[in-house]
């Protein structure tokens, strides 16, 4: 090296097999070569195996007629549609059950987690028992119990369990009224969103202004105002913005309304009950991690019970809760692939059907895994953004 300080020039040159700079490059090249060779080996085998069976790697089959029915779908689909459309239905079903599941599991998880800390001994013990049973048995077993023991043994259609005259539960699933948009729906939605935006702007301005009325519970007042606007608009508009299509008992099944099949109910219930057990532990851990002195200090400052919870405990607990909560959401999404056990046509089930029918398991499963990966990465990205908001900036 020519640019060394003069004092070191007399040192003997390091031989290349001991030179850390050379070694670094060599090790990396060797590692990459090993990985490349491994992948190459598998790829060559794949190519030769597929040509042996007269298959070619490609996604041409996506435009072909699928030829299989899908039990339930949020968009219209029939056996005459293409494999590509069938796959889309699978993605939508997975997203649907995951999003609904995440919302419900969070609510139940918070309730159970707080119940575990209840001063009422019985309530706390029951919540703890729930958490232990749920966390220490396999999800697949719980799904089987929900499906085979609870749902399949519900009464047949004619003897449906009815809740009023609009909600019915029977072997075929859960039937609830379906909301239908009427022509005035968009106008109404516009008015409501406008009201909410207005309230949020006022709230933000108030926070900045330093006026004394900023300490009023503006969020609550704003929410009530927005709700009032929504109700007034609903009545004032010439036609109600949403109308409900009620399920009507037919001879063999219900027609109309929104039908949630037994399979969907089973996977949703299974995911919610299972994940809620884990979320409860996350919530409990987060609340318990808030130091006792914080609560005592809040009391000493004269904060009410509600304000202590809202301004002292909750923001600090959130910081601890959000990262593990993210991984629970990811787990729920990935666990939704167990829907195949109860027959709900999610991404994985549609994927395996496609793999069997097309005789092309490799590209199909690659697509399925790729989709799960994208969903997972998107979820963690969103949660990381939220996490950054709740974290305290350290000095």
């Amino acid at each position, binding site marked *: 090296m020519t640019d060394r300080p003069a004092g070191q020039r007399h040192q003997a040159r390091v031989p290349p097999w001991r030179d850390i700079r050379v070694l670094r490059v060599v090790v990396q090249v060797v590692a990459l070569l090993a990985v490349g060779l491994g992948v190459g080996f598998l790829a060559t*085998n794949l190519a030769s195996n597929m040509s042996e069976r007269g298959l070619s790697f490609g996604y041409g089959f996506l435009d072909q007629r699928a030829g299989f029915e899908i039990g339930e779908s949020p968009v219209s689909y029939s056996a005459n549609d293409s494999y590509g459309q069938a796959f889309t239905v699978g993605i939508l079903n997975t997203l649907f059950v995951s999003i609904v599941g995440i919302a419900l599991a969070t609510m139940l998880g918070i309730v159970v987690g707080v119940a575990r800390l209840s001063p*009422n001994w019985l309530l706390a013990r029951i919540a703890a028992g729930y958490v232990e049973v749920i966390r220490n048995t396999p999800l697949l077993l719980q799904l*089987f*119990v929900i499906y085979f*023991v609870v749902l399949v043994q519900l009464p047949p259609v004619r003897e449906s369990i009815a809740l009023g005259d609009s909600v019915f539960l029977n072997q075929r699933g859960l039937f609830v009224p379906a909301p239908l948009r009427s022509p005035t729906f968009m106008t109404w939605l516009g008015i409501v969103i406008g009201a909410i935006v207005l309230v949020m702007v006022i709230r933000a301005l108030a926070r900045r202004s330093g006026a004394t009325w900023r300490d009023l519970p503006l969020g609550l007042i704003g929410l009530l105002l927005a709700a009032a606007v929504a109700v007034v608009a609903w009545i004032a508009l010439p036609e109600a913005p949403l109308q409900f299509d009620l399920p009507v008992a037919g001879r063999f099944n219900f027609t109309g309304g929104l039908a949630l099949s037994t399979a969907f109910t089973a996977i949703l219930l299974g995911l919610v009950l299972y994940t809620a057990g884990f979320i409860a532990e996350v919530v409990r851990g987060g609340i318990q991690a808030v130091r006792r002195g914080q609560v005592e200090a809040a009391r000493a400052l004269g904060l009410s019970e509600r304000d202590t919870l809202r301004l002292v405990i909750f923001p600090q607990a959130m910081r601890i809760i959000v990262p593990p909560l993210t991984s629970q959401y990811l787990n729920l999404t990935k666990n939704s692939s*167990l829907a195949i056990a109860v027959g709900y046509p999610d991404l994985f089930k549609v994927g395996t059907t496609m793999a069997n029918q097309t005789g092309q398991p490799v590209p199909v*499963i690659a697509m399925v895994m790729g989709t*799960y990966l994208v969903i997972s*990465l998107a979820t963690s990205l969103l949660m990381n953004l939220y996490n950054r908001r709740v974290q305290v900036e350290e000095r």
Partner: protein
Amino acid sequence: MTSNVLAPPTTPESPIGWMRRNLFSSVVSSLVTLLLGALLVWLSMNVAQWALTEARWEVVTRNLRLFLMGQYPGDQAWRLWTSLLVLSLLAGVSAAVFGHTTRVLAVSVSAFQVLLAAIMAASPVGPLITIGMLANAVLVWAAMIVGLRLGVPRRALMVAWLLSIPATWVLVAGVGLAPFPSVSSNLWGGLLLTMLLALVGIVLSFPIGVLLALGRRSALPAIRVVSTAYIELVRGVPLVTILFMADVMLPFFLPGEVRIDRVARAMGGITLFSAAYVAENVRGGLQAIPSGQVEAAQALGLRGWQTNLFIVLPQALRSVIPANVGLFISLLKDTTLVAIIGLAELLGIGQAVLAQPDSLGAHLEVFAFVGLVFFVLCYAMSQASYRLEAAMGVGKR
């Protein structure tokens, strides 16, 4: 400061005082207590009535053999007994030598064997088997007492554990020679297969996971990128897709003449899957090592691999034991997913049993039994991990 400070006097609380404080502290609390209490009584009465009078437990007891070892040939069952014996012995001695948490585990092993013996007593497997299982449960305690008396050196015990892994494999799978003819993995099933899948998964994924964790923190960009990509890729997809890949797609990726049996493929899938999770646990441990430790090692002239092997890893791995116990619990539960690709582990055997003509409709009985087995195993391990965490003061140092 004087050391003989007395604790504040405590008056023993009367049961009524306890109830007033914990169950009826306010109107709302009292209502909740009454409501939940009524619900609990109603539920337990229903469950007890079903379990004692209606349940057809003979579906479980009649098929107990299937549930425990699948189709494993009866004349080779002594090999399973031998490996169980080794496990009981090692668990007992470990409880004596390592103390604390291992003691919880050993007690659980013994309790689990007593539970199995109780179920066996009610089933037509014969008194000899029941007594054998009870003897195993007693052996755990005997080994613990002997271990306490003799003082077995730690290192010898570690070597024994390491040797027990290949020994178990030889016993269960066989080597094709006279005393140990090969037993095809198609015949493994039930609890045996569940345990083997979980144990192989954790034992093999551990070294891979450690290497991946070190790779992810490597200063060399190529190695870091490859490790990170593997970890994130595997953690982003569900286990069933990996199992499906191992089951259906692996033959496509191997030369035509290579045939791997289904159980081994499932084990491979589980291992590669859990390696990514082990890696993330270990990375947590690595990050918790203060940089002063590495700097001190460098100042002493240790090389890179020496620093990792003697300074960083021993501290990091110690601190992630509880997290890895948690991982093992979820791995044990996740082995049920191989039922989806058609292997007969405990839950898969349950489904097979339910398909028998005279077991129709006995879902709840079968699921209750399978659930109980999983619950006892997982609950024992989670309790051990809580204790370990408390004993090690994780998060306090």
